[in-house]
């Protein structure tokens, strides 16, 4: 590490250690610091261009050094978390139902890990992964699938009768967790192919990505692949999206704004309830399944989530 990198690392570490960021996930911390640097560029430049930091360098160069270091630090934090999820927390035994031997499953997990890391190199992949990662940190799949099985209502019907998943509650939860992690890989193949305001992709692009992933990740079962890639499609246009994909889309988007352990102001609804309530009014715009949102909203209301 050269002198400049050391200074950048020290500066970034100082920002990361700020108590106001304690309750954020790594990628949310990254967002906060990038915003901070951009919003305060004038004041920061005066200090950061001084001899103590990066003398004589223009602001774009300084911010590039800082953001590179920031991404590197965050990547190592995310990498640690990703490994924990893929290799420890998510039980991939549901793959056996799709004819995958334990050895094949292990190979699939390793290749998924490499793929996901690749997606983190793209701007949109990183944003998308932030939502998925946070959804896992906030335990959205396990909590809501548990409630789904308790209620045995619309989502349960869609999972078991329409998508015809012959799996236990735990297996479905793990499948959604895996889908969430796999979802950002659509950004590996081409950046900015989606609608800029909604993040949705087209059917043609989805088919193209699925074909490419099948080549690169031959062990990934069709159901997991469709769920992950088609979760980026609009349910308003494409009614065939698997239930697990629709849930993945909702969990991913919901978790982007949720901050783990956030202190809720008195008089405000909880983050999940708020997001689901607003999401119900934006369902057409984002292509979410309104009945699913209604049911999830009811769960958040009943359970105080």
């Amino acid at each position: 590490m050269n002198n400049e990198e050391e200074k950048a690392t020290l500066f970034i570490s100082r920002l990361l250690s700020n108590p106001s960021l304690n309750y954020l996930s790594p990628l949310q911390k990254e967002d906060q610091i990038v915003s901070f640097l951009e919003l305060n560029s004038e004041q920061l430049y005066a200090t950061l261009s001084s001899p103590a930091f990066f003398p004589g360098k223009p602001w774009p160069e300084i911010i590039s050094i800082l953001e590179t270091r920031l991404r590197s630090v965050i990547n190592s934090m995310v990498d640690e978390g990703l490994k924990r999820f893929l290799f420890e927390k998510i039980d991939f035994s549901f793959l056996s139902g799709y004819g995958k031997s334990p050895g094949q499953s292990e190979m699939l997990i390793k290749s998924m890990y490499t793929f996901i890391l690749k997606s983190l190199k793209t701007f949109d992949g990183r944003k998308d992964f932030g939502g998925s990662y946070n959804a896992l940190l906030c335990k959205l799949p396990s909590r809501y699938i548990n409630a789904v099985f308790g209620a045995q209502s619309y989502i349960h019907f869609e999972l078991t009768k329409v998508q015809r998943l012959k799996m236990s509650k735990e297996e479905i939860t793990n499948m959604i967790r895996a889908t969430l992690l796999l979802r950002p890989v659509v950004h590996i193949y081409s950046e900015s192919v989606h609608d800029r305001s909604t993040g949705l992709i087209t059917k043609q692009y989805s088919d193209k990505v699925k074909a490419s992933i099948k080549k690169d990740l031959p062990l990934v079962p069709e159901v997991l692949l469709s769920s992950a890639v088609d979760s980026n499609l609009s349910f308003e246009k494409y009614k065939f999206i698997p239930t697990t994909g629709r849930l993945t889309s909702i969990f991913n988007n919901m978790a982007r704004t949720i901050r783990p352990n956030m202190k809720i102001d008195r008089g405000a609804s909880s983050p999940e309830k708020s997001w689901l309530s607003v999401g119900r009014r934006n369902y057409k715009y984002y292509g979410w399944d309104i009945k699913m949102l209604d049911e999830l909203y009811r769960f958040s209301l009943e359970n105080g989530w």
Partner: protein
Amino acid sequence: MEKLKNFFESFIVIAILLVLVQTFLEDFAVLAGWNWDIRRNFIITGFIFDSLFTIEFLVRYFSALGKGQAGKYFLEGRGWIDFLASIPLLLLNSGPAFLSLLMGGGVVFGLGSMLNILKIVKAIRIARVLRLLRILKIFRRIKYTGSVMAQRHITKINTISITAFVTTLFIFTLAGGYLSLPNPESTAAERYANEINTFIGLSNVGGISAEEQAAVFGAFDKDLLIVKDKGQTLFSRFDNPTYSLLFGPGDFAYFEKGSWSFFFDIRKLLRIQSVYNLLFFLVVIVLVLSYLVYYSPHFALTVTDPVHVMRRGFSDSSYNLEVEIPEKYRDDDIYVLADLYNKEYLTLKQRSSAERGAGPTMSDLSLDDIQDLLE
């Protein structure tokens, strides 16, 4: 200078808390019939506190006057509370009581002014309700809510109700004396006058010695303490040590008519007034506590909390929490607005904030967090 000011303010807050305890105990001591030694200490401490608050008011007033802001201090800075809770008390209540203490006894009045004596005694005691205004001084210093608006509104409503209560009591009691309304003082005055006139009338008839006559009167009227003729004691209910132990200068009324002198025990009247004073004290305390414990959270729930949530939502692009709308207040203006905020604003905000590549949002970090680096 700032430290000295903070010390002064803290000192005043402590003094207010202590004076409230003192006010309660002073009346309670009368009601419970505590010995004079104890009650005398309350009179002295009351005088010290009133002097202290008078000095506080004068310091604040002349300090404001020096800055050309005397009017502002008096009207907007609650100087009027500082005034009402200090100088009138010193002049009408603790000052006369303390002077009476220094003089070592009651003042001699003619029989014609008997009722006036009792009215003055009562006015002196009723002036004590002004002390309750000091609660307002402490109330406005308590930071019981983070919202400036809530603090101002609750302090205002508290000030209005307590001031209205205290001043109405004060004015009514003072004016009541001149309206010849039936009251324990006039009843007692009438009784004492009748008794004195009867006693003197009978003493002229003869057939029974003055000592025997005084003993009979003393047996019938437990308020009659001492009867003297030409300086010679004809009847005394207690011995001198007992008087010293139980009676202070304000506990008896002393009347002269011709060569006769009469002392009456007026502690029963004082007890009645103490019961009222304690009642007023409790009403004010209950009012303040009700505002703090019940109304303040209610105000926060129905006004400041939804405003705070909406304000954060408007100013912080990453804050997307809905306002929780209680069903029973759904039609309140504030919640009608909150409903619009939830349904219209947040819906559009979710769309705009999700725009890919949108510019930087707010950050939880601030430059103050790294001020040492920036220096």
